């Protein structure tokens, strides 16, 4: 009897204590932030957040704005503004204005990284316009329209390089690679779209690639599923890459050091005369050679552009670190990377050119 009552007392005490663990956070009575944008206004940093409003708007997004010296302080200001508790465990998009990104994101990255509330899948992006306008465009929109879902859809489609907080931190702390993230903008209909890909030198934004360069960047990273415009006999065509594979081979023994990219693409030609290429093998080979030569030139131009900007967003340094036993980051980027010779080999396999005339 004594043991039973002791057990009952223990169970009761445990239940009471465990019940104490659950803070009263009913989902439609708290503000669960989903997207955050930061801008710089003089000395101050302004932050705009979007959260689903389940009480008045049936879950469509609402907006709040605050300002402070640091992003973390803005979050505290939101707490003071809001009649309901603020939670940011579900934030999936963090947008930084180009000004903040150009001045350096170390402070922001440190506070984001140390924040246990954030997952590693969070999207980090820069905005060509103000981050506030990007977030404000979400006002009264559905939850699925956040920048996170927009970028995720394009990443899974193969057009945009895979990017999230994990990748950013991975490259940020890497000795032989610079970080990068998508760049977002607003069109005339106030819709968010991806307008390029932002390349950082450690913590500072240095270069924004346009959409074509972003596709080529993705091609160099490997596994591209993109569309490439090319010309053949004065006409414009589009190559839709269905499968692709890129292999990078460092040559540390040569002088200057060189890096070779072997790109293999398999795809189809859009807007050609039906599936005529299948019946014209010579024409098909000439088509492929034209594409190979044009893509090769574009890839070389992109590599030279990044080299000239002293950007190693593709992780050339990492490739050399993995094969050289006494690799030193400082010496590599001071002496080897600026004079490095890039070679690109492109092989294109055209499977068809459509179904109808």
């Amino acid at each position, binding site marked *: 009897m004594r043991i039973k009552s002791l*057990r009952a007392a*223990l169970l009761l*005490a*445990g239940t009471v*204590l*465990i019940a*104490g*663990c659950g*803070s009263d956070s009913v989902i439609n009575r708290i503000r669960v932030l989903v997207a955050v944008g930061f801008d710089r206004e003089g000395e101050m940093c302004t932050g705009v957040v979007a959260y689903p409003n389940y009480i008045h708007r049936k879950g469509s997004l609402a907006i709040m704005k605050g300002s402070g010296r640091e992003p973390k302080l803005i979050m505290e200001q939101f707490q003071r503004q809001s009649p309901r508790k603020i939670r940011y*465990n*579900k934030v999936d998009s963090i947008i930084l204005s180009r000004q903040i990104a150009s001045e350096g994101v170390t402070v922001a990255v440190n506070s984001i*990284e140390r924040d*246990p509330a954030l*997952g*590693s*899948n969070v999207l980090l992006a820069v905005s060509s316009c103000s981050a506030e306008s990007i977030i404000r465009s979400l006002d009264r929109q559905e939850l699925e329209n956040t920048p996170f879902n927009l970028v995720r859809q394009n990443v899974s489609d193969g057009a945009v390089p895979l990017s999230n907080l*994990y*990748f950013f*931190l*991975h490259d*940020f*702390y*890497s*000795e032989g690679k610079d970080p990068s993230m998508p760049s977002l903008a607003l069109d005339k209909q106030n819709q968010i779209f991806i307008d390029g890909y932002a390349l950082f030198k450690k913590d500072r934004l240095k270069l924004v690639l346009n959409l074509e360069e972003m596709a080529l960047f993705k091609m160099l990273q490997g596994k591209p599923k993109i569309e490439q415009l090319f010309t053949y006999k004065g006409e414009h065509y589009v190559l839709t890459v269905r499968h692709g594979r890129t292999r990078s081979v460092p040559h540390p023994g040569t002088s200057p050091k060189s890096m070779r990219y072997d790109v293999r693409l398999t795809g189809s030609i859009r807007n050609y005369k039906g599936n005529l290429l299948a019946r014209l093998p010579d024409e098909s080979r000439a088509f492929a050679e034209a594409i190979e030569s044009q893509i090769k030139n574009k890839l070389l131009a992109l590599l030279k552009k990044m080299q000239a900007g002293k950007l190693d967003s593709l992780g050339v340094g*990492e*490739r050399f*670190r*993995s*094969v*050289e*036993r006494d690799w030193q980051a400082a010496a590599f980027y001071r002496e080897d990377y600026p004079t490095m010779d890039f070679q690109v080999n492109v092989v294109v396999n055209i499977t068809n050119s459509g179904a109808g005339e």
Partner: protein
Amino acid sequence: MNYQAPLAKTVSPYLLWFMIHKSQTGVAVLDFQSRIAQGAEQDSWVSVLLTGLSMHLVVLLMFYVLKHANRGDLVSLHVQLFGRGLGTLLNGVFLLYLLLLVCYQLITYSQVIQALVFPDMGTWRIGLVFLLLFVYITSGGFRVITGTAFWFVLIPSLLIVTLFIPLQYADWRNFLPMFNHSLPEYAYSAAQSLPLYIGVELLLMYYPFIRNNDKAQKWAHIGVMHTYLLYFVFVVATFAYYNMGQLRHSVWPTLGMSKIIQFTFLDRFDYFYIFNWVFVITPPCCLILWSCTRILRFTTRMSGRVSLWATAAVVFVIVAVFHDMLAIDRLGAVVRYAGTSLLFGYIPLLAVCVFIANRFRKSVRDSEA
């Protein structure tokens, strides 16, 4: 000599596998990667394996020592070898070490919960909830703890499957160039990985409760092997997922890997992962509490139930008092240092003492004959 407890209180020898493995895995698994990487960096997996292999030697020594204990455990061996006074003192030191070990497990896990899930909740509340659970299991006796250990090996093992998701982000070049470090760097990583194997010394207390314990040694070795292979899997997954720079900035790399796991029905899998760690820390904590109770029963006149609650009360007070980060860090350092010294210093020393005592006894017996 092989003393064995009454049959009704013993467990099958194969369960030693789970007991040994479970007593070794605890909160150290959460952050050991950052520590070991400070030495041989991407090659420190070698040190983890070598240290693991060295544990077979420690197990051999423990079995040798225990075979010569009158009542089959460390507490009786201390008295047998060093007399009642010094033996009791050594038992007290061992009890203190065990208390610190269980406090370290509980405080560290409370820290994880506070940092990642309930920042407003006091350590004492979290500590109390878990301590009541541990006391409840421990009051069931050694067989109940063994059963718990068995299931609590199987349940969190399912989490290993989820490593597949972070491994999709793996960069296997992080391991290159291989074997690119000096011997002192490997040694440093090995020294940092030693605390991972703390807990195996609890065998010194529960050995008499293993049925046919003289033939159970192979299960102990399998348990040790299970542990270092598991650590090896975690090290490989971690080094593939993080580069060295990132690892230096990660406080709990094992939990950090779970932050990338996302399902359509579960957005933040990491919260599930954190609470699954209860299954990891419960068996070693219960086993330590049970061992403390055994020591108290042997050295004082307290009953089992009273000594269990007394131990739990002391643990609760320590857990509730420790707030300061520096003090917690110092506690961790003390536990790691004490555990390592015990495994690689005291147990071999004890084996030497037993060997000398046996030789002495044999020579006396021979001279008498």
